[in-house]
């Protein structure tokens, strides 16, 4: 039964992904009719195509990696801010949508049903406030989430589907900057959760996964910079993310790793280095949560 459900969910995700391609490309049918000739007003300067762009991972993927490395559930570390209406700017809404998305993945993968439901509601509320609440209605995602509470696999597939329809919605509406901001919030929250659990467990695998997360920070910063011209409010967020990178790059273990220039090697931080990094992540996370 579970396999059937999984298989159906996977097929559903593939169907969504395939149909999304055609919607996003602005054509309804594949093959011949996909050739689209765009009439351009001759007085309009030709739009420049971005030559570099970024495809960032999902909060669910990060939560899965942490879980595989032994990240256990710890009560009370998800965002304490349970009033989404507190966030009034688009930047704070998008950042905290990321925070709640990371909390959602963490609680689902750890079978914390009630808290997962609360996170889902907060995500929905912020998505509504950002004018993109309709993505939750596609394929009755909210309803299916509630119906499948307790079934970790199904919930994970629903979150994956939600991520895909959200990304497509933002792409279609030329709001890719929101994707990068949401992911920044999710990434900071994931690192915060990982570092808080590490404080207690001191697991070696978790340590290396924490430092590995830092290797994608450069991509996040570049993705934000690429969107900065669309939203000048991102500038402060870039500075915050760069401050985390500066701390990380200054750590002895990281300097040694960079000198060795062996990309395949794992980086293991000392406890003191994890504390330094955690302190900075906590500082940025507090700023995000306080709006």
């Amino acid at each position, binding site marked *: 039964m579970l396999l059937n459900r999984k298989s159906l969910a996977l097929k559903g995700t*593939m169907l969504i992904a395939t149909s999304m*391609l055609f919607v996003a490309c602005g054509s309804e049918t594949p093959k011949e009719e996909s050739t689209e000739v*765009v009439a*351009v007003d001759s007085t309009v300067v030709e739009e420049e195509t971005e030559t570099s*762009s*970024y495809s960032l991972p999902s909060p669910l993927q990060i939560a899965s990696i942490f879980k595989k490395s032994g990240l256990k559930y710890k009560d009370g570390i998800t965002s304490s801010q349970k009033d989404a209406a507190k966030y009034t700017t688009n930047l704070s809404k998008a950042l905290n949508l990321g925070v709640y998305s990371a909390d959602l993945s963490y609680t689902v993968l750890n079978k914390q049903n009630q808290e997962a439901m609360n996170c889902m509601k907060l995500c929905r509320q912020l998505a509504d406030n950002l004018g993109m609440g309709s993505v939750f209605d596609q394929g009755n995602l909210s309803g299916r989430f509630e119906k499948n509470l307790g079934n970790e696999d199904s919930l994970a597939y629903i979150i994956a589907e939600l*991520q895909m329809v959200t990304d497509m919605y933002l792409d279609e509406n030329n709001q890719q900057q929101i994707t990068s901001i949401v992911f920044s919030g999710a990434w900071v929250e994931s690192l915060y959760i990982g570092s808080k659990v590490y404080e207690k467990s001191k697991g070696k695998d978790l340590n290396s996964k924490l430092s590995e997360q830092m290797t994608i920070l450069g991509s996040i910063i570049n993705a934000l910079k690429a969107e900065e011209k669309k939203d000048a409010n991102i500038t402060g967020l870039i500075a915050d993310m760069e401050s985390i990178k500066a701390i990380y790059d200054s750590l002895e273990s990281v300097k040694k790793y960079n000198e060795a220039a062996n990309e395949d090697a794992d980086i293991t931080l000392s406890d003191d280095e994890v504390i330094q990094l955690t302190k900075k992540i906590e500082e940025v996370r507090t700023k995000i949560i306080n709006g």
Partner: protein
Amino acid sequence: MEPFKYDSQKFTKINFTKKAQQLEVEVPVFIGEKYRIVFNTSGLPKPVSINIYTKDKEAKKREAIFTNKEVKAGETVLVFDAPRARKMYIDYDVPADSTASPTQKLSGCVAFMVGYK
């Protein structure tokens, strides 16, 4: 497609112009994880060369770890199992379109999904 989980994708809109273009998508990945990238090129009005590297286009020396050069005409779903890496760079080499004009140009879209397990 199984047993990979897919929850991220990237659409790239391509405008064919008189000049050839190289569009690059940076995909950060985590070492030790297994990834599969699935492309869908059915939204393209004409072929685009797809290459994957572990270094960006500014790098002096880099070798493609995937190319669609050998793919049969008409095949629009391409699957690539990624090796151990920290980053992948997906390059779309878009050929020049001599028929493009300031008032009319061909456009299309290519997409990929990243699966992990």
